[in-house]
């Protein structure tokens, strides 16, 4: 009994400490953002609760930075990246899971080999290709979005994830549908996709998070502030407000609100252990 109590107590202490450490950088940022102009944010000893609590920093940064534009851009890019990934990955996964065709081994190994090619090692030629295809923001909004979306519109992880899911669907249903004259496309759309919707949801959510947080590629291709995504815009705060940490902090906190809300709503997908298949390097 006592042993069990000690065990529970030490577990809680450890996990409370971990949760606190996990939140601390954001709490400290929030505290700084809420401190008024008369407060010394560098004061020793530091104090957490603002003495002159104010939202002025948030208001000023909101006025100066087009956050709504950044949100909109990030949303468009992430949403289309998710949709294209779901469609293309599951389309490609169907023949890999169910059909025998000439060249299957070659196609399979080709797709598998892209797992070993890190984007960071090929980003220069990808940039040259995107330039050649006129998919950069100097050609307008839509080309700019395309350049952000298409290089990430499909990847091998998604294809293999969907293939795994299709393999676990019993074949009998498809065969019955096929005998009834159902086309392969309709088998894919009306049987396989609904049967694998949990996996599709996992793929959608993790693709969304990845796209939403992506920094390297947008910071390479984007030249116009009107097309900045959130991470690029937030990084830009450092330059805009040089060392004014109240404003940098306020801007950073504003920028994470949408993803925190998304996370809270979708939390069961993140922490239920279903994401085992979404392991990514």
């Amino acid at each position, binding site marked *: 009994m006592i042993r069990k109590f000690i*065990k*529970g107590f030490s577990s809680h202490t450890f*996990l409370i400490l*971990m*949760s606190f*450490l*996990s939140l601390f*950088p*954001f709490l*400290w*940022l929030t505290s700084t953002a809420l401190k008024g102009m008369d407060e010394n944010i*560098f004061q*020793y000893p*530091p104090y957490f609760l603002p003495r002159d609590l104010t939202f002025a920093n948030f208001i000023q940064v909101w006025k100066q930075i087009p956050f709504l534009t950044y949100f909109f851009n990030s949303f468009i890019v992430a949403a289309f990246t998710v949709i294209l990934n779901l*469609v*293309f*990955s599951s*389309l*490609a996964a*169907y*023949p890999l899971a*169910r*059909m025998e065709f000439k060249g*299957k081994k070659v196609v399979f190994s080709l797709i598998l080999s892209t797992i*070993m090619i*890190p984007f*960071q*090692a*090929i*980003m*220069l030629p990808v940039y*040259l*290709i995107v330039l050649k295809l006129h998919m950069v923001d100097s050609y307008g909004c839509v080309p700019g979005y395309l350049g952000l979306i*298409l*290089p990430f*519109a499909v990847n*091998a992880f998604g294809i*293999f994830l969907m293939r795994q899911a299709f393999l676990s669907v019993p074949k009998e249903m498809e065969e019955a549908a*096929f005998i009834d004259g159902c086309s*392969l496309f309709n088998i894919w759309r009306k049987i396989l996709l609904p049967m694998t919707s949990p996996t599709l949801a996992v793929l959608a959510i993790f693709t969304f*998070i990845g796209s939403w*947080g992506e*920094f*390297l590629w947008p910071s390479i291709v984007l030249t116009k502030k009107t097309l900045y995504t959130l*991470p690029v815009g937030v*990084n830009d705060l*450092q330059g805009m407000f040089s060392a004014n*940490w109240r404003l*940098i902090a306020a801007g*950073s906190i504003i920028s994470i609100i949408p*993803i*925190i809300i*998304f*996370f809270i709503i979708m939390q069961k997908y*993140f*922490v239920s252990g279903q*994401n085992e*298949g979404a392991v*990514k*390097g």
Partner: protein
Amino acid sequence: MNIYYKKYIAYLFLFPALVLLGIFFFIPFFQTFVISLKDYSTDIYNPAFAGLRNYAVLLHSKEFYTALTNTFLFLILVVPFLSIFPLIVAIFINGKIRGVSLYKVLIYLPVVVSIVVVAIAFKWLYAQEGILNYFLQLINISPIGWLTDTRFAMLSVAIVTIYKGIGYYMMIYLSALIGVPKDLYEAAEVDGANEFFKHLTVTIPHLMPTIALVVTVSSISALKVFAEIYVMTKGGPLNSTKTIVYYIYERAFENLDLSMASCASVVLLILILVFSIINITFFENKRYKL
């Protein structure tokens, strides 16, 4: 029975994915090698063939060696910690106590927040007159330049990567822990093993494949580190946090030195290939088997 269909139909389904992978993976992949063999310094539009000369230049470049050693230093700082510590957290969370889902959500939170914001938050903690230096002062250590001192900068960056990774690897371990047979723990208890010993003799051996997977996965992502460095140090001070990807980025997009960027990319490709092959053949072979 088998479903009969025209053979080309498979390729209709594969078509969009193959086209995109072709344009954005295979062509760039081969171009990386082609560019690495050309000399762009005299005429960027009509590069002359340089053969392996660029590689000779790269391998004699001190800056590249610094980037290479920095990358491995970063890997050594990050990987052992990210392979072991999240397992400990997962074991605590798996211990059937109340409030587990709240703990999980809070510890996972940094994973979903953009690395840019996390890096900015830490930059603020690391400030010269910041809160971390205050804590140091409390234990009689004089303030350190977390991001401005060449001795500490890489460690400071590594701490950010670790902070952001714990929740991610914790979830991988948690789903693996479900698979450990319960009766083994009971048997260990009957033998009088304490908590620590139970995990040492039952959990760890059972999770060896998962631990190995986390080692390779976290190694691959350590080799690719970029955003934290770009946001916090820009490779400085004095190149002390310049890693391979940062070197590639700088060469390619700031100095327009396409050849050096591509040679370094080939080195990165080879390094990651080694880890990926280990990963695919040993730890994830089930998913990648035809």
